[in-house]
Structures are given as structure tokens and as C-alpha cells.
């Protein structure tokens, strides 16, 4: 993008009809007021005590374990999938890409039901896992990790694939002419070049996993210390202990903000 184009856009942007400011302000308020509501009702004085209860600490710990686990699964399986989508021409590639991103738009509860029917004790794959290895996934922490990975992995795949498509492949060609093998090129050239996309993908994937609720409660159930992650704890606490629910919500809000700040250069280029 040249400076000329950027200037023209900036000039055009300042000449919007004044009437647009009304709905724009409404939209801003609509998005910001709920957050203000949360902050206004936060029990600041007892916040420390609320967050230090065993139940909250357990949910925090479990959320950390599950979301990091989900990112791990996504890195292990999703990054190779991104390479496949970006670099290999094969029939039905667009269909595969659509399938990959389906769980982003699928209601998470539906995802949870689908996971049960696939990996549950009576599920397509789960039945076999149970019979052959005695492994059952519902009601386990592994199940919660899988539920989170199911909804969060597409964020990593999409981001990584975009990075791969945007990178300058001449660096790889140069490495190849200098005698580097495919693995060496991948490790020493490609991965470092797409590191920013990969990093953004990891952050988004992690944030989505951390916030995952519907698929988790449907597939993995709700048991403190085993499958009750923070969003589940917020939901359950909301029905009995509003203060604890608000405190937990605040933690999730702060984490989300932190992800935004970490990604600000990527999403909101200041230039």
C-alpha cells in the first residue's frame, strides 16, 4: 500500500454523513455499556476474597490447564492442516476449508451434542475407544480439552493459513537452492517467517478456548476441579452467588482485554 492510497482513504473516511454518527454512537454504547455494568457491580472491596475461594481458584486452574491443552492440540493438528490447505492443491480443497471453519459458526451446544455422538461412550468413535482401550472422554478433563479444541482450532488454522499464503516464498526457494531439506526449510525459514500469524492464531485460539462454554458443558459435563472451567463456574455461580459470578466474569474480561492489547499492532495498525 502506497502513502498516496492511504491518504486518499483517510480523507474519504472523514466525510461520512453526520446522521451516521447517531447509529454509530448507539452501537458503541450497546457494546460498551454491558462492560460498564459489570464494572459497576464488581465488589471491589471483597474481590480478592471472592477470587481466593477454593471453588474460584479451582476453576481458574482448570481453565488454564484446559485452554493451554486445547492450544497444544490445535498446534499439533491445526498447523499441519493449515500447511495442507495453503500449500497442497487437491480436489475439494475449498470444501475441506469450509469444514475446518464450520465449528467457528456452529452453535457450541450443537458442537457439544455432535461431540457426544462421535466421542461419547455410545458414539461412532467413542464406542470403539471404550471397547478397545477402556477410554471414555465425557466427564473427563481430556473431554473438556477436546471440546475447547473443537471450537478454538479453526482460529489457529485460518490465521496460520493466511500467514503462509502471504509470505514471500522466494526465501524458501533460496534455501532449497542452497541445499536445505524440506524439514530444515520448514524449521529455519517458513516457521520464523509466519511467526506473527502463528502468534496471533495462538492468542485467538487460546482466548476462544478459555471462553468456551456450550460444547464443554454439553460434552464434558460440569464437575468442579474436573470439567468446571471458568465460564461454567460463572454460569453456575450466577444462579446462587452473584458476587462470585461477577468476580469470575471480571477475570475473563481482563484476560480478553489482555489478548486485544497483545494483538493491537496486528488488528489496529497505528500508521
Amino acid at each position, binding site marked *: 500500500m502506497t502513502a498516496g492510497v492511504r491518504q486518499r482513504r483517510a480523507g474519504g473516511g472523514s466525510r*461520512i*454523513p453526520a*446522521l*451516521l454518527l447517531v*447509529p454509530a454512537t*448507539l452501537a458503541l454504547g450497546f457494546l460498551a455499556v454491558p462492560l460498564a455494568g459489570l464494572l459497576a457491580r464488581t465488589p471491589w472491596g471483597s474481590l480478592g476474597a471472592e477470587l481466593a475461594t477454593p471453588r474460584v481458584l479451582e476453576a481458574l486452574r482448570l481453565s488454564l490447564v484446559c485452554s493451554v491443552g486445547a492450544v497444544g492440540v490445535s498446534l499439533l493438528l491445526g498447523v499441519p492442516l493449515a500447511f495442507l490447505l495453503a500449500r497442497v492443491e487437491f480436489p475439494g480443497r475449498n470444501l475441506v476449508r469450509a469444514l475446518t471453519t464450520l465449528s467457528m459458526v456452529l452453535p457450541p451446544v450443537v458442537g457439544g451434542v455432535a461431540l*457426544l455422538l462421535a466421542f*461419547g*461412550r*455410545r458414539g461412532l468413535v467413542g464406542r470403539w475407544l471404550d471397547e478397545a482401550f477402556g477410554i*471414555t472422554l*465425557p*466427564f473427563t478433563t481430556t473431554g473438556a480439552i477436546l471440546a475447547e479444541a473443537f471450537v478454538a482450532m479453526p482460529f489457529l488454522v485460518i490465521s496460520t493459513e493466511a500467514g503462509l499464503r502471504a509470505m514471500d516464498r522466494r526465501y524458501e526457494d533460496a534455501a532449497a537452492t542452497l541445499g536445505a531439506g524440506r524439514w530444515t526449510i520448514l524449521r529455519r525459514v517458513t516457521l520464523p517467517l509466519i511467526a506473527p500469524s502463528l502468534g496471533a492464531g495462538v492468542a485467538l485460539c487460546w482466548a476462544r478456548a478459555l471462553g468456551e462454554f456450550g460444547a464443554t*458443558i454439553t460434552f*464434558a*459435563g*460440569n*464437575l*468442579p476441579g*474436573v*470439567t*468446571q472451567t471458568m465460564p461454567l463456574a460463572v*454460569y*453456575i455461580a*450466577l*444462579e*446462587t452467588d*452473584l458476587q462470585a459470578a461477577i468476580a469470575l466474569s471480571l477475570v475473563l474480561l481482563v484476560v480478553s482485554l489482555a489478548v486485544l492489547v497483545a494483538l493491537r499492532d496486528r488488528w489496529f495498525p497505528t500508521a
Partner: protein
Amino acid sequence: MLRSRTLLAAMLAVAALALAACGGDDDSGRSSGAASSGELKVFAAASLTAAFTELGQQYTSANGGTKVTFNFAGSQALATQIQQSAPADLFASADIPNMDKVKDLVRTPQNFASSQLQIVVEKGNPKGVMGLDDLANPDLKVVLAAPDVPAGKYAAQILGKANVTVKPVSEEDNVKAVVTKVSLGEADAGIVYVTDVTAGGDKVEGVEIPETQNVLATYPIATVKASKNADMAQAFMELVLSAEGQQVLKQYGFLPPPTT
């Protein structure tokens, strides 16, 4: 320029629609006195789903098509929603403590039904569950309602009486979710109301809990003070307490309210 104008038109159209929708809401509030066009909102315990749905149909056909919408959930969730001023006209709880939680917001509650609890297992009882003692078996996947849910609280009382320690694999948010997990075959057993076993159909069956260890869950109902449809709410409550209403509840396995 043309594009931004089209966009503006679209946005204004959306805003107009939103305003129209708000206006519609006001109208229904105003006309609440006339029972013909309003809509009754009943917040009822999840275990009442089948029985109240039928009572709702009876009410609608007896009252010139007045629509009844139900919010079925765990009573603890409903009580909290009413505390947060959710638009409820009538509240039916699966226990008295959750009704007490909103006692300042409702008129005098009346008990309208009761139910005992049962162990729910998959049809054919593949794991051979004979009683509460079997639930302590660590190889058995037991699902209970969460301790804050009435059914979970009753289950804890029952297990306490029987002196059985159960480690559930999940604490579900409402009693129906317990039945679902058992009917899907993901869990082996759960403790639910007798009525949930009946409503669970041919996928599940019940294992009786002896009288000495069982508890009687009492269901109170009350109209909400803030309701704009007080007459309609009162009429629905009277239907529930009437002989016909009690007959419907009986069909779904509920017992009459305790006589105290």
C-alpha cells in the same frame, strides 16, 4: 457516496424496526387487563416441563387462545432470574427454599404437588443397579444435579440418610440434563424425580428408593407481584390447583401436595 447512502437507509430501516418492536411490547403491556391478547409467562421447574406444557395447552384453549410461554429451568436459576426482575407472571418451584428466596417478590405461595425421587438407569438396567448402595461403586458413572439445584439437594439428603458416599462424574445444572446423560448412555445412573423417569420415555427406567431413605419434594406456586398479567397468572394458578389440573399432574406421576 451512493453506497454510503444505501448503507444509511439500511441502518435507519433497522432502527425503525427496532423502535416498532419496542412499541409492540408496550402495547401488550397496556392491554394486559383484557385477558384475550396478552401473553402469560410462567417460570417453572424443569421437572414440570411435560405436565405444565399440557396445562398450558388446556389454559390456552379455555381462554380464547391466550398464549402461555414457559421458561423451564432449574428452580435456583428461575429464582435468580426473578430476583434480577425477569418478566415472570407466575413461578412454580421444585422446592420451598427457592420460593422463599423470592418471597418479597411474590404473593402467598400454595403447594400444588409433590414428588418422590428415584434412581434413573438406562432401559433394561444394564449395570444391575439395585439400590443406593450400588451408586457408591467407583466403576459406575453417576450423574447428579448440582447441589444448588433442588433435585441435587434432595439427592444429597437421600444419600445422607442412606449413609452412602457418591462421587458423581458431573453435577448438571438441572434435573432434565441428568436424565439426558443417562438416556444417551453416557452416565450409568442418576437420582431424579419419579416424574422425570416417567417423562424420560422408553430410554430409561427407575429403581425405587425405599420410603425410609426417600424424601418428598414439595412444589409451591405463586404469582409474581411485578406481573402486569396478574389476573391471567391467578387463573393459571387456579387451573393448576383445580381438580382438572391435579388430574393432569397425577398423569405425569406427581403426588398431591403434602397435607400439613
